[in-house]
């Protein structure tokens, strides 16, 4: 035994120490979990969305539990890029994991400005571009639902940075592979998926939706089969790495994504329930590799034909 497994994952010009990341919006800025998890076990921390200006977020209530999942309508609540750089980065950059800023905006110039300001911050590993946000200039339709917009935004941001550029895809589209290819054409180093699925819960007694924003994003174990299927399809449509997520709560769930074609994975909602999951999932992946005589985690990718 004692076989060593190469867990590193190459994305663009850089390498992640291991394939297990924590998903945007579910891990704050790392410090919230420092007493509950040895943060050095995470391959990457994907931060809460960073926008140009501070955002207070949506009205309350913002969360409701659903069968094996939850709906959230947090609404990109964050302190804005300047405070992110001055208040969050000093802590984050000391961590041994890759720090990936999740970038969001309401217009293309907003994304551009956020990335420009983040380029000045050292210690940042790369960017995950959240294209699930409504584009206010295009009638509020999410950037990520239109391949033309995705390709243009990606190629614009590509020119601003040599750091890994990951486009995070929304599952709320007819054909996600078209969007994934648009990101690849624009010069993305990887795509990550899935963001949350739009959902609604109605309080029949009060005769109104439970969430103040009416709809929210569904996450948790309930969405896992959707995420696995979309990872399977996208990884066959593009040649860049795919980072899979959606309902991963243990190593077997993570392995489903990797066998389907993901190079790396992210743990989201499960952090709320089992904050040690990034550690146990990573150890489980390692054991699986050892048990199957796989010496490098990259060989797991797409074993399923």
């Amino acid at each position, binding site marked *: 035994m004692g076989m060593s497994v190469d867990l590193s994952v190459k994305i663009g010009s850089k390498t992640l120490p291991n394939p297990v990341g924590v998903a945007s919006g579910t891990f*704050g800025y790392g410090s*919230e*979990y420092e007493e509950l998890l040895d943060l050095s076990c995470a391959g990457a921390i994907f931060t809460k969305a960073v926008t140009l200006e501070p955002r*207070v977020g949506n009205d*309350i209530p913002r969360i409701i539990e659903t069968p094996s999942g939850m709906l*959230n309508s947090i609404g990109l*609540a964050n302190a804005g890029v300047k405070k992110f750089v001055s208040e969050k980065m000093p802590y984050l950059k000391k961590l041994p994991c890759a720090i990936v800023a999740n970038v969001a905006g309401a217009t293309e110039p907003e994304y551009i400005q956020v990335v420009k300001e983040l380029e000045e911050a050292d210690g940042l590993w790369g960017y995950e571009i959240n294209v699930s946000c409504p584009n206010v200039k295009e009638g509020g339709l999410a950037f990520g639902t239109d391949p033309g917009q995705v390709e243009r935004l990606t190629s614009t941001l590509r020119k601003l940075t040599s750091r890994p550029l990951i486009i995070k895809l929304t599952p709320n589209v007819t054909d996600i592979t078209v969007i994934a290819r648009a990101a690849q054409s624009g010069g993305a180093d990887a795509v990550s998926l899935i963001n949350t699925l739009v959902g609604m819960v109605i309080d029949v007694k009060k005769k109104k939706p439970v969430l103040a924003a009416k709809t929210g994003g569904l996450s948790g174990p309930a969405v896992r089969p959707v995420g696995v299927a979309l990872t399977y399809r996208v990884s066959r449509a593009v040649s860049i790495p795919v980072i899979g997520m959606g309902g991963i709560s243990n190593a077997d769930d993570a392995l489903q994504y990797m066998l389907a074609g993901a190079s790396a994975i992210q743990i989201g909602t499960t952090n709320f329930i089992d*904050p040690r999951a990034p550690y146990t999932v990573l150890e489980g992946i390692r054991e699986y590799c050892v048990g199957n005589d796989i010496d490098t985690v990259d060989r797991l990718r797409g074993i399923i034909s």
Partner: protein
Amino acid sequence: MLKQLQSQVLSNRQISADFFELSMRWDKTAGIALPGQFLTIRVSQDSVPLLRRPFAFAGFDEPEQTASIIYQKRGRGTEILCGKQAGESLDVIGPLGNHFPVNDGQGESVAAAGGIGLGPILFLVNYLRERDVPVTFIFGCRNSSYIPDNTAFKTASPNICTDDGSVGFKGNTISYLEQNIKINDKSVLYGCGPEAMLKGLSGFADSVGAASFVSVEQVMACGVGACMGCVVKTASGYARSCKEGPVFSAKDIVWE
């Protein structure tokens, strides 16, 4: 020091119509809990119910290394909790959140609990008295069947109010305060219970310029300040009830 613990259940018993008291071993590596702080419990390894459930500390014994909660059977999560037997282990994270500030003893302290707001107020009352801070304790509930049958409650000399008058004062805790309690600008009021009660308590304190601190209840996902799901509206914007709260100065809260 916030920690995730596998805590052994020491006892779990029904203390009124639908209130239960659960006491557990508290590993000292997780530090001490103060009145107002809470813990979260993963009641089951299944994905239903999914999220950890938050409960306020109702008691904490540092030398004995025990902690307790008082909870109400409400839905699936608390129903599962009711079934936990002494000896079983519980997946707990705590202590979380801030705590009630201790009255410096200049003026009178009054602590009011409405219904299942009992736990944190009972803990506070005992905590203050151990520190020789006198406090008037008020507990309001629907009727006599909700009056808890446990020692900590009975020895805390509660002033009981019931909606139907079956025991004690007939009416809610706010009417009781208005009719029976004299406060001034040095008084400190504490409260936990339904929102309408907390709002009433705040108004009662404000009328004489007294300070008031209330513990609010919001649905939580992470409990550690990461998700921004549990916010409450305050004068200075949204604040996370799991991190900046659950205890707030009542005058800072923007009531609905």
